[in-house]
């Protein structure tokens, strides 16, 4: 036997068995598609081409775009390089012209004379793809009537006795979508007798369409409909209509499925009821499931036992206690709920006040409005004043009104307060943005779709700061002996009041000039200025009254913005799913941004329409398919050994809620931990981690394992993932920072601002310096800091 050949064969068998290679199953449908005789397909192509002359010009243009179509064909056919054999040269202008003329001639004749004479099977159905538009259409009738209209994006309507394609929306016009494939978004089939029978339109997936097998391969203009998107784009409901819970669940599910399908993400399987109730218990009451609850749930044999259980549990004290904590965390700077209550009775009173308001069914906007005008004495052991004044004491501590403004922007409106303090955040909303504006890319994309108010600018920020500077937080140190140390560790007397010496405020513009902040709201509403004087009043009376009125107006405006609604939905979503629907730093998760944005807007509008019904929103989210996904928890070795593509897929699935993320840490400032770990592992996180299985033969091996195999925590694991695949947008943002010749400390601060709107502490700056000295590369070091920071 020839040694070379047998070795080759043996090697291939070894690769198959040891490398776990398997032959990819052949897609018979695809094969069938490809067996169509090219000449026959060509004739079909020409036929459709001629017929297409009846369509709007935007759709006709598809036919000239062979190059992009043929490249798409090669990809979809999965034949890689081989499918590109047939790739044609780009047609010349003569070719295009003659082609078009021939098409027009054929189309005109067909339209004038032949169209109505064509038998039903002339063109049973077909799909046309192009670089910008995709069309699915069908004519299978002796009495084909064609109705076309075009407004904005092209819409095509064809009718037949069997069915008609009532509406067609071309591919999503998401500008930032890097994919060249545009998908069919909506196909709504309306039974032809709908008027008579009163039946409603039926929305079918592409697989369900009656022309599933309308396959033809011509010159690339016509392709299998299998290449198209599979699900119609869900319609986001009007904010004027209040949806019932089931409809709202369907809205979320449809959008999620559309997003998964569009991004080619395969969702993990759903979980059984037993797992669902355990998850729901933790996420809704903050407590593990009790045996009693479990038994009663399992004993309930009704189809809607999940809904029944949610109805029960959301009316309990546990529910209000837990969601008070979540709400408090959402509106206060930094997450503080983990601190023991004994350390701060003011916070306890604040929480009790919120819990009572939630129980009274006071809506969230009303609660926030009451908080904003609160004053009071927060001295430990006293109960005077408004407990809600604690919010100002925390946000405007040390009378840092800029920080308080950041708190309002971040925690109540979901904007990056620390960024808009120095930068114009949104180029769309801000007409006077400077060309050299440092961070135009910080803008939350698509955020201006509902309201200008969603994007605050630097001037907005400082105008708000002027209003906020009417608050005065005074702190007096108490005699420790007079404080009951059994109940508190706080020995400070804190009082929140109105600032009697309220005065003008100046801020620095991009050109380094100082400008006086104006007393007005971002919607243009003028407020009382510190310089306004009223006759017959003392200066302090004047100030106090003006500040209160201004704060009332601030509360009304703030709670009337869509941003407020969406922020509320976002923190509820984050509590349920472990990660927000939309992060504040949009560059970090650019996957599915538009779909998530749309969903957030729709849910925000619905939340407002329901008078901020927290119980309903929580129940809806717990019943969605996204909440019902299994957890994928790969081991750390996988994170390290997987390819970047595999990692991206894994991350995309998590970010798009196609798998449930049980252990997301909303804000872990773990730079110190990571740095320590980094140092221990011999200055290389990725290189030195022992990925081999340890050999255990004696006790000495155990000791050796501890030394060479670091214990990998979840935070470190996420760090590994982020280090390996930092989102593209984030990476380019870092490059921009580096070009701006910022000091290292400022770079670190920016990285930390992205995490939770607060600058790095001294310890964190120290750790960052250590990291820089280890890597000796600013870019690499700042990447790793970001990797450790972003949730």
């Amino acid at each position, binding site marked *: *036997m*020839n040694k070379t*050949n047998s*070795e*080759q*064969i*043996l*090697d*291939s*068998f*070894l*690769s*198959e*068995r*040891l*490398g776990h*290679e398997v*032959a*990819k199953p*052949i897609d*018979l*449908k*695809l*094969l069938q598609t*490809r*067996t*169509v*005789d090219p000449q*026959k397909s060509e*004739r*079909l192509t*020409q*036929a459709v081409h*001629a017929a297409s002359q009846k369509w709007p010009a935007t759709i006709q243009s598809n036919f000239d775009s062979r190059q992009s179509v043929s490249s798409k064909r090669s990809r979809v056919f*999965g*034949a*890689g390089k*081989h499918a590109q*054999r047939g790739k044609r040269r780009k047609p*010349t202008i*003569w*070719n295009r012209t*003659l*082609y078009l*003329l*021939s*098409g027009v001639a*054929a189309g005109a004749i067909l339209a004038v004379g*032949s169209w109505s004479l*064509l038998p*039903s*099977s*002339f063109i*049973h*159905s077909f799909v046309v793809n192009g670089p910008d538009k995709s069309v699915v259409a069908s004519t299978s009738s002796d009495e084909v009537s064609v109705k076309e209209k075009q407004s904005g994006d092209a819409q095509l309507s064809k009718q037949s006795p069997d069915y008609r394609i009532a509406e067609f929306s071309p591919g999503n016009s998401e500008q930032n979508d890097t994919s060249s494939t545009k998908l069919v978004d909506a196909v709504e089939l309306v039974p032809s007798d709908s008027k008579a029978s009163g039946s409603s339109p039926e929305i079918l997936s592409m697989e369900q369409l009656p022309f*599933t*097998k309308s*396959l*033809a391969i011509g010159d690339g203009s016509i392709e299998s409909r299998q290449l198209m998107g599979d699900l119609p784009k869900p319609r986001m409901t009007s904010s004027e209509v209040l949806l019932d819970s089931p409809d709202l669940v369907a809205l979320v599910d449809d959008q999620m499925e559309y997003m998964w399908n569009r991004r080619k993400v395969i969702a993990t399987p759903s979980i059984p009821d037993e797992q669902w109730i355990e998850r729901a218990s933790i996420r809704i009451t903050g407590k593990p499931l009790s045996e009693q609850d479990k038994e009663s749930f399992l004993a309930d044999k009704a189809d809607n036992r999940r809904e029944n259980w949610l109805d029960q549990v959301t009316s309990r004290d546990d529910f209000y206690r837990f969601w008070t904590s979540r709400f408090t965390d959402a509106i206060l700077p930094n997450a503080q709920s983990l601190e023991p209550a004994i350390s701060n009775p003011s916070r306890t009173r604040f929480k009790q006040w919120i819990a009572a308001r939630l129980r009274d069914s006071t809506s969230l906007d009303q609660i926030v409005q009451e908080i904003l005008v609160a004053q009071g004495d927060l001295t430990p052991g006293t109960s005077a004043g408004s407990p809600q004044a604690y919010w100002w004491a925390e946000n405007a501590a040390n009378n840092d009104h800029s920080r308080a403004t950041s708190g309002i922007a971040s925690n109540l409106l979901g904007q990056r307060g620390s960024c808009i303090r120095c930068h114009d955040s949104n180029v769309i909303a801000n007409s006077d943005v400077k060309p050299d504006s440092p961070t135009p890319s910080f803008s939350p994309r698509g955020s201006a779709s509902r309201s200008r108010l969603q994007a605050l600018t630097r001037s907005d920020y400082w105008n708000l700061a002027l209003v906020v500077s009417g608050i005065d937080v005074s702190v007096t140190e108490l005699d420790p002996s007079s404080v009951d140390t059994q109940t508190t560790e706080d020995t400070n007397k804190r009082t929140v009041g109105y600032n009697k010496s309220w005065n003008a405020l100046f801020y620095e513009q991009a050109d380094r000039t100082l400008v006086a902040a104006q007393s007005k709201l971002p919607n243009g509403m003028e407020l009382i200025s510190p310089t306004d004087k009223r006759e017959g009043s003392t200066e302090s009376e004047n100030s106090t009254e003006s500040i209160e009125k201004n704060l009332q107006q601030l509360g009304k405006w703030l709670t009337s913005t869509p941003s407020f609604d969406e922020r509320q939905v976002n923190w509820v979503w984050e509590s349920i799913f472990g990660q927000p629907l939309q992060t504040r730093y949009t560059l970090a998760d650019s996957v599915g941004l538009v779909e998530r944005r749309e969903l957030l807007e729709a849910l925000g509008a619905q939340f407002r329409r329901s008078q901020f019904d927290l119980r309903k929103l929580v129940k809806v989210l717990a019943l969605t398919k996204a909440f019902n996904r299994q957890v994928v928890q790969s081991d750390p070795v996988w994170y390290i050994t997987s390819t970047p593509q595999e990692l991206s897929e894994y991350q995309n699935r998590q970010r798009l809620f196609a798998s449930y993320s049980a252990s997301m840490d909303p804000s872990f400032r773990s730079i110190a931990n990571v740095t320590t770990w980094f140092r221990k592992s011999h200055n290389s996180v990725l290189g030195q981690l022992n990925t*081999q299985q340890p050999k255990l033969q004696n006790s000495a091996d155990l000791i050796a394992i501890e030394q060479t195999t670091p214990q990998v925590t979840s935070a470190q694991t996420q760090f590994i993932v982020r280090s390996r695949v930092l989102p593209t947008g984030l990476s380019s943002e870092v490059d921009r920072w580096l070009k701006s010749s910022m000091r290292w400390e400022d770079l670190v601060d920016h990285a930390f601002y992205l995490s939770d709107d607060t600058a790095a502490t001294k310890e964190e700056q120290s750790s960052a310096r250590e990291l820089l000295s280890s890597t000796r590369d600013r870019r690499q070091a700042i990447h790793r800091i970001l990797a450790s920071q972003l949730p």
Partner: protein
Amino acid sequence: MELQSLRKQTGWKSILRLAKPLIISGQLLSLGASQFSLVMKEDGLDGSSGTDFPDWPEAPLFIEKHQTGVWRFLRAIGCDSSLADDLTQETFLAVLRKPIEIVNDAASASYLRRVAYHLLVTSKRRNSRTIVTSSMDVFERDWVRWAGEDSGDTAVEALENCFERLTSRAQLALRMRFSEKATREEIAIELGITEHGAKNLMQRAKRLLRDCIEAKLK
């Protein structure tokens, strides 16, 4: 006049190419609507076809039976996994477009291997690469001796048995080589031997495997 200027600019071939759509359109119109209907029905493009492969209903079974064998053959002859996937599909596509007369499975498998081989040669030629084996006939003969008539399932099963008989060090070396794509240097470090030692170890192991498998296949 226009044609003449076009001729000067682009030549006759270009004119013919440019005129093709007109010719096709003319043909298209001359066919008439009823003929179109016929064409569509004949082609099975009107959605009415009942089977996936109307001309050859047994095609799915045929593909299922021979797919693994073709894929393994392509892997053995030097294709990587994805190229083998592609060429396997192309092989069956070629056969579906021009169905063969089925005498027996062995003949069918042999024919499929020939088609696959030619597709591979075409692919390599297009990419200006040389083919991995110069003599298809010799390779085909060796392949049949190894893979027999069951697409190589018996040989792979024998491989699994024989592999268990290797020493643990040899097993580890081969696993690292074929499963983790480790280099000889990495294998040598793992086993605490020289790179040359690792090479010898794997060569010995593969020789043992080959002898063992051949003994089992006899």
